[in-house]
């Protein structure tokens, strides 16, 4: 395992002063007017890294005073540099030098800085090394002038990006296909394209001692609950880790502290989903370097809603949603019910089916529970392997999985055909759930339920289900009860949980998330067309 020193976030103040890995990354030393020593300091800190380009441009005849330009090759956009930055430098040198290559006037650092500021965009004044390194390593170009104790960082970020492509994991039949990319700025732009309201506010932080990852919070002021926004800010500030490489790190570090297989933070790759959630009053957390954006607070129903539900007609969507809820039950209870009924409650099956099943079970050496666990584990292994396979082997593995293991195992007498059917249906139903982390939760819970079913039958299943219900009802996501609008029962919430009523009826926002601004629109039912 890679060595990682994490202090994470703890509820007690046990902070011993652990010196950070490289003490000058948090260097708040101020810049000094002497440019030679500044450049020396910068070079040593960066270890003379070869991709950091430092150009020195003389500003007077004896070449004793310099202007320095620093950028990171690969992170800074070459085109912008050659157009804006170098042109400015050329212009400045021209103004200093007369035709006969003599420096005519002493340079005025201040004026030079102003000229630079004019031509470049996104100007930041740099007064200490921490900001300098952060800007330099993010792709900005730094201007330092001898004799001034401050410099300028010009926004020249531009690197090779994956660009806006189709979503890989969240496909829809109807609806936009854009997905976020790994660059924070692209992602925020995608969201702003959907919501052009000035109340869409954004705050950025740098989290992660060594990675200094940019993390942004977006919310719509006036719709989002201020208390929750404040809570998000506090939790993000409390994070104290070395690295944030993906939004999953942040998710784990800010989620409510309960030991639960169920996710309390929602994540998605699609800008339209994020826009919809923002409009409901939730808060989006974007992390630079990953296309998966977090949404907080997340309720149980969010994980069962697909973006498409709102783009198709209400009756279709309601039917599909019901199907999804049914699939949860099947994926959770499928094998357990099979085990319970065949072991304890055979009287429930029609007589002819019992004969068939009994005949099958005769040949199998294991009790139903062992059989079920074996098959389920095999399927989980196959599924996990399938995720990582290169595309050309993928089909071979699925053939192995279905034909060889399923068919051959039945013929060898290790498992019964009914078991294969049950496992297959269960597995397929578990993929109907749109959100991966929710379907994993149900898949994991299947196993204890199978154990309970094998020992206590239907009674055991019920005990397990009640235990799961109790657990779900005790969860909160950033203070909001996880199971609303089912429990506590909110009647207006029912319009959009199991069914999806037509848009002209969905006139209010979820009430527990934003308490004040919850009337969305006036109800304007569709009018009958004139004959």
């Amino acid at each position, binding site marked *: 395992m890679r060595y990682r020193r994490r202090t994470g976030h703890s509820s007690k103040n046990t902070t011993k002063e652990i010196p950070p890995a490289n003490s000058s990354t948090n260097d708040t030393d101020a810049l000094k007017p002497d440019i030679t020593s500044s450049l020396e300091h910068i070079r040593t800190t960066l270890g003379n890294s070869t991709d950091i380009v430092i150009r020195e441009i003389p500003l007077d005849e004896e070449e004793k005073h310099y202007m320095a330009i620093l950028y990171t090759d690969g992170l800074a956009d070459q085109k912008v540099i050659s157009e804006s930055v170098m042109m400015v430098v050329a212009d400045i040198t021209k103004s200093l030098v007369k035709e006969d290559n003599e420096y005519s006037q002493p340079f005025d650092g201040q004026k030079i800085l102003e000229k630079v500021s004019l031509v470049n965009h996104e100007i930041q004044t740099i007064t200490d090394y921490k900001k300098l390194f952060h800007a330099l390593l993010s792709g900005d170009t730094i201007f330092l002038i001898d004799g001034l104790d401050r410099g300028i960082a010009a926004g020249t970020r531009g690197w090779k990006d994956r660009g806006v492509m189709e979503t890989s994991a969240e496909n829809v039949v109807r609806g936009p296909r854009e997905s976020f990319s790994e660059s924070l700025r692209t992602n925020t732009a995608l969201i702003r394209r959907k919501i052009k309201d000035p109340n869409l506010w954004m705050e950025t932080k740098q989290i992660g001692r060594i990675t200094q990852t940019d993390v942004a919070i977006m919310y719509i002021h006036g719709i989002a609950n201020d208390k929750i926004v404040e809570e998000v800010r506090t939790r993000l500030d409390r994070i104290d880790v070395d690295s944030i490489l993906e939004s999953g790190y942040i998710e784990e570090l800010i989620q409510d502290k309960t030991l639960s297989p169920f996710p309390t933070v929602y994540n998605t790759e699609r800008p339209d989903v994020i826009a919809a959630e923002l409009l409901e009053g939730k808060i989006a957390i974007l992390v630079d370097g990953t296309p998966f954006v977090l949404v907080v607070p997340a309720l149980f129903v969010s994980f069962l809603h697909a973006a498409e539900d709102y783009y198709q007609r209400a009756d279709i969507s309601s039917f599909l949603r019901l199907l999804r809820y049914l699939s949860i039950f099947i994926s959770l209870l499928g094998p357990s019910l099979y085990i319970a009924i065949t072991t*304890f*409650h055979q*009287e*429930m099956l*029609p007589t002819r089916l019992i004969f068939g099943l009994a005949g099958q079970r005769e040949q199998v050496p294991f009790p139903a529970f062992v059989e079920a666990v074996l098959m389920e584990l095999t399927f989980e292994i196959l599924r996990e392997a399938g995720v990582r396979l290169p595309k050309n082997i993928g089909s071979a593995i699925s053939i192995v999985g279905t034909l060889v293991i399923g068919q051959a195992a039945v013929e060898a007498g290790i498992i019964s055909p009914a078991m294969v059917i049950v496992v297959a249906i269960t597995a397929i139903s578990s993929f109907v759930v749109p959100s991966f982390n929710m379907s994993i939760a149900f898949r994991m819970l299947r196993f204890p339920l199978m154990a309970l079913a094998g*020992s*206590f*039958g*239907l*009674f*055991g299943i*019920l*005990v397990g289900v*009640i*235990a799961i*219900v*109790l*657990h779900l*009802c*005790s969860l909160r996501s950033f203070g909001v*009860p996880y*199971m609303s609008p*089912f*429990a*506590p*029962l909110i009647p207006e919430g029912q319009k959009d949980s199991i069914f999806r009523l037509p848009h002209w009826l969905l006139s209010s926002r979820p009430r527990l998330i934003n308490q004040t601004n919850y009337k969305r629109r006036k109800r304007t039912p569709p009018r009958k067309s004139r004959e």
Partner: protein
Amino acid sequence: MHVVKISLRQVSILTALYTIGSAILIVPSGMASIAKQDAWIACLAGSGLGFIILAVQLQLFRKHPEANLMQWTEKLFGKWIGKTVNLLLLLTLFLGGPATVLHEIGIFMTIQMLPETPIQAIIFLFGALAVLGVRLGLEVLARAAEMLFPWFLLLFLSMSILLLSEIHWEHATPILESGISPIFPAALSFVSIAFLPHIVLMVIFPGAVNRSAEAYKAVYIGSLVGAAALFLIIGLSILVLGPDITARNMYPSYMLAKKINIGNFLQRIEAVMAVMWFITLFFRISLYFYAIAIGISQVFHIKNYQPLVMPLGWILAAVSVFIYPNVPFKLQWDATIWVPYTITVGFLFPLVLLILHGLRKMLPKKSKKQSDSA
């Protein structure tokens, strides 16, 4: 400690599930053996009586909705006598309440559904579930009740509808064959399970409801729903099975479920119907247990009741195993001792509290008069 607030709707649902509780399983048998085919009349009479009893129980709390039963006892009896009375109350309620219900479940499962499983395993499993529920708190129990209640309704109504084809109206005749006299004991037996133990709710709800002034209405509504469900079950038992079989069988509702037969395809689904009784039994045990945990922590001035739940749960499971040495003892006890006990605890006790409260209110005026005239 975290302040618990549940909504009125949750109060109604919890009360309904509590009322139905174990009654749905055992009440038809007892009543039919006493009143035979008039058990349904006894049920109606019992419900009427029950509402009067509820009125007595709720009276104190309509006036001061924030103080629960334990606090009233200490206030009206004085601190030390009050604490002793509370402890006795809690101890006996513990034995007669969750312990007996847990034992019921164990016996029901071992007799009807899982004959080869030791009763300790079933008691331990369900006891652990109750411990989980109570440990998580009243809000969680209330929300779980809101989520599970629709399933109970679904199973209950589907069972009732599916049995409509099996009704034989002549089972209910002749009406009042033995006259009025058997109605009273049957009604009393009904009330002793379905209404008198609601005194336990007086320990839980006051102080925990967000609109406490109207909480009593929610309790009435919940009890009404519960009583209606019980009436339906008793009626169906008599009409479908007949008074003899109902009286002789320990769990007539289970027999009812066995009779469901749709097109020779969906039959013998009593295990699925049993699910609905487990739901109500779970909430009955949990509410009993929660009341006792809260009560004990109040008597000893322990602020957080949650750590006590697991040891109390252990005691509960351990005691439940041997609380009834055998089934005839249980039937006898339920019929002869449980009724006077619940009458004392559920009716006489709140009555005494009311009288004391009334006296107390009059006394300050008396002493004021004396000090005025002195």
